[in-house]
């Protein structure tokens, strides 16, 4: 069995081990650092290394998601939340760390105890590869008719899970809108509009002609790439989730360079709120249509009434599956893009409040950067 070979004999194992050591080191640095900005930057780094690791394990879909969600959007939102709080954490007294430390050590010991009985990575005889996993590989092309098995599992075989995950994004957006609002404070007071997001940046922005011009070129390309990822998910790595995140990042970059109020004029908060719920409605709506046509919920073979399905797909096509997957991926993209943008609006819209509060409190509590 080659996966039990010594570390040095197998370069890919060595590579994996090196990445793992890096991950552990970054985690320690995140825990030790009291500067929140440093911690956030390190979490971004952590995700990128993790994404590399997933690539090394031949899981490009997971790596892609990790990179755009963890490295892109989470980092941005964490930065936004630091903007609203302070920049360093209070030291924790050692006595308060005793119980968490015991819990963490116990969990670690339990995992190490079980690791021995977990099959080797890539072992073709392991339960995960031998039973349901092999069924997916063998049956996808026959039953769903698309080449990317990962997309078939996510969108079709386990499409109900994906509906649930889209709902989680929707619920998170609803939660942030409840607590922080829709960024309406940034627009509400015309006198303060210009200071939305970052007053210093807005002052200086005219010196950054290169940045502005470059962003103007970049954003359409990002949109285009987002749409490519959305519609290319059937054949390659990608899909609605990643596409939604890329579209949201394009909007966030726009807000960072041109100011929040400019972005909110083009993409109003109300539209983002509507988009977040419309996406889930599209996804669940596809399922309801399937039920009306006599199938089970999310059985895309019943996307069209049976005679139409026959006419559209010919002898061995899967028209219902194709159109159904595209439709639900569009729903996922709508919810993720609008939901994340709404979350960003919620955080960034609070920035003027914080800026004015900081100014009135004096330099010791203002930005230290």
């Amino acid at each position, binding site marked *: 069995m080659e996966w039990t070979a010594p570390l040095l004999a197998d370069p890919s194992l060595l590579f994996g081990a090196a990445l793992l050591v890096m991950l552990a080191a970054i985690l320690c640095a995140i825990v030790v650092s009291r500067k929140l900005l440093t911690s956030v930057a390190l979490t971004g780094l952590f995700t990128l290394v993790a994404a590399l690791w997933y690539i090394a394990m031949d899981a490009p879909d997971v790596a892609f998601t990790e990179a755009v969600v963890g490295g892109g959007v989470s980092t941005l939102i964490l930065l936004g939340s630091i903007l609203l709080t302070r920049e360093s954490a209070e030291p924790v007294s050692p006595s308060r760390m005793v119980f968490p430390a015991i819990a963490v050590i116990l*969990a670690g010991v*339990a*995992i190490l*105890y*079980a690791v*021995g*009985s*977990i*099959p080797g990575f890539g072992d073709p005889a*392991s*339960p*995960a*590869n*031998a*039973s*349901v*996993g092999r*069924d*997916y590989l063998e*049956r996808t092309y026959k*039953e769903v008719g698309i080449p990317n098995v990962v997309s078939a599992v996510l969108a*079709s*075989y*386990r*499409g*109900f*899970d994906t509906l*649930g*995950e889209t*709902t*989680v994004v*929707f*619920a*998170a957006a*609803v*939660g*942030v*809108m*409840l*607590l922080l609002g829709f960024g309406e404070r940034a627009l509400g007071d015309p006198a303060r509009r210009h200071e939305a997001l970052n007053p210093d940046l807005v002052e200086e922005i005219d010196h950054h002609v290169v940045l502005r011009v470059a962003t103007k070129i970049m954003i359409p390309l990002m949109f285009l790439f987002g749409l490519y990822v959305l519609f290319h998910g059937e054949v390659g790595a990608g899909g609605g989730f990643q596409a939604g995140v890329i579209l949201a990042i394009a909007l966030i970059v726009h807000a960072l360079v041109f100011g929040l109020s400019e972005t909110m004029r083009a993409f109003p908060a109300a539209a983002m*709120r*509507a988009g*977040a*719920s*419309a996406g*889930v*409605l599209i996804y*669940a*709506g596809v*399922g*309801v249509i399937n*039920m009306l046509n006599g*199938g*089970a*919920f*999310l*059985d*895309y*073979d*019943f996307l069209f009434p049976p005679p139409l399905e026959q006419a559209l797909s010919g002898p061995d096509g899967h028209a219902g599956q194709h159109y159904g997957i595209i439709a639900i991926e569009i729903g996922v993209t709508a919810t993720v893009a609008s939901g994340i943008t709404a979350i960003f609006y919620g955080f960034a819209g609070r920035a003027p409040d914080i800026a004015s509060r900081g100014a009135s409190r004096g330099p010791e509590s203002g930005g230290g950067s």
Partner: protein
Amino acid sequence: MIGLEFLNIAPQRFAEQAPALVVVGPLIAACAAVLAPGRRWAWFLCVGASAFAFWMAVVLASEVARQGVISYAMGGFPAPLGIEFRVDALSAMFALLISGMAVLTAVFSGESLETEIMSSKHPLMQGGFLTCLAGLLGLVLTGDAFNAFVFLEISSIGVYAMIAMGGARDRRAYPAAFNYLIMGTIGATFYLIGVGFLYAATGTLNMADIAARIPTLTSDRSIEVGLAFILIGLALKAAVFPLHQWLPAAYSHAPSMIVVFLSATATKASVYLIIRYLSTVFAFDWQVETAFMAFVLAPLSVAGILICSMQAAVDPEIRRILAYSSVAQVGYMTLAIATATSAGVSAALFHLFNHGVMKAALFMAIGGAAIHLKSQRLSDFAGAAKSAPWTMTAFGIAALSLLGAPLTAGFLSKLRLIQSLVAADWGWAAAVIGLSSLIGVFYVGRIFEVVFFRSEPEGGSAVREAPVSILLPLWLLAIANIWFGIDATIPLGLAESAAGAVMGATTLSPAGAP
């Protein structure tokens, strides 16, 4: 079986889709509520969708009673390839409890939100509530271990924010919500790690399939560790002592609507998953599991019952008293489950149902009072029975039921609990429940003394009678507390068939007392 079969009037094709519709209905309504033009529309959607879910749950329960276990293949892919909704009597009972409580909470929410949350945010609150409802219903219906994780998240994410919305009236809601967010996320992560181990060992995510494959495995290690992670994660979510610390603060500072619904359903859905894993996924007679129940679950339940009852007895705030009592009551349920007998599980489920009915009524009455009274201190409720007789009488009935007074629902289920413990030769455990009831007499007596016998303060009590839309669901619950105390056919029938469904016909030998 459930006395509501007359509601099972859906056409056959419609009834076949009930397992999906019961979740999809509230989900679609949640999206629509967020888009609703005004708070009236959102409230209307909320009541309508909850009622629809309840109707579908009734259809499901009567179908299960008629034809046994219902399996519904999501996406038309049979398990284990696709995700399966597997509805047995246990799932049906929880679906009925959750959706029924949702209808009452939805009716209650209209007037209650009015005073607690600014009106432009009502659609979002109703949307979040319906999302949580869909999540809890999916959680108790799914037969897939990973799908259960997704629903666990759906039912929690919005709730964290909605608890924090209590911060407008009581700033302590913010740290409470943050603590719950951290603890809940740790719980969900532990559950997911456990599912990961099960998947590595069995190669499948379908619960029934996992159960079928476990006996064929040569090594038990990842199964043991998987079980440990899953149970710890769920115990956090179910607020089993000592993992309950998030609950008292979250329940005492959240908006009333959220507390009413959560206290009746949320921790109970996690108790459902614990029962599901202990009985269906892992074999109840498995050595590791028997040892776990006798030497870990039972002692922790006892500690939780006694310590939290005492904390309830000394706390000065009325909602926190009730929250601590909730943790103690969860202890009753896990203690009976730990006996691993059919009678024990059935008594636990019976008490769980009744506890939902009484706690919802108690928090609803407090929520009704909170329309005029911002404070939650018990002393500020002095003489409240004189200024708000209807609200406080219903409160009193539910409090008697919590105590276990004869002719209330609480009496019958507590009796069942004690009987099942004695039958399992756990006499000491029955004594613990008796002792905790004595402490209960103390804290319920304290509330009674203040509310009913103390004279109003100078200038009259600040508590006013709750509006009709609150009194209506409140009195329905109060009457249910008496009705089920005299004629317990409905809850007892549900609990017994649910316990029968998961424990099988064979009587399991009771685990030895620790």
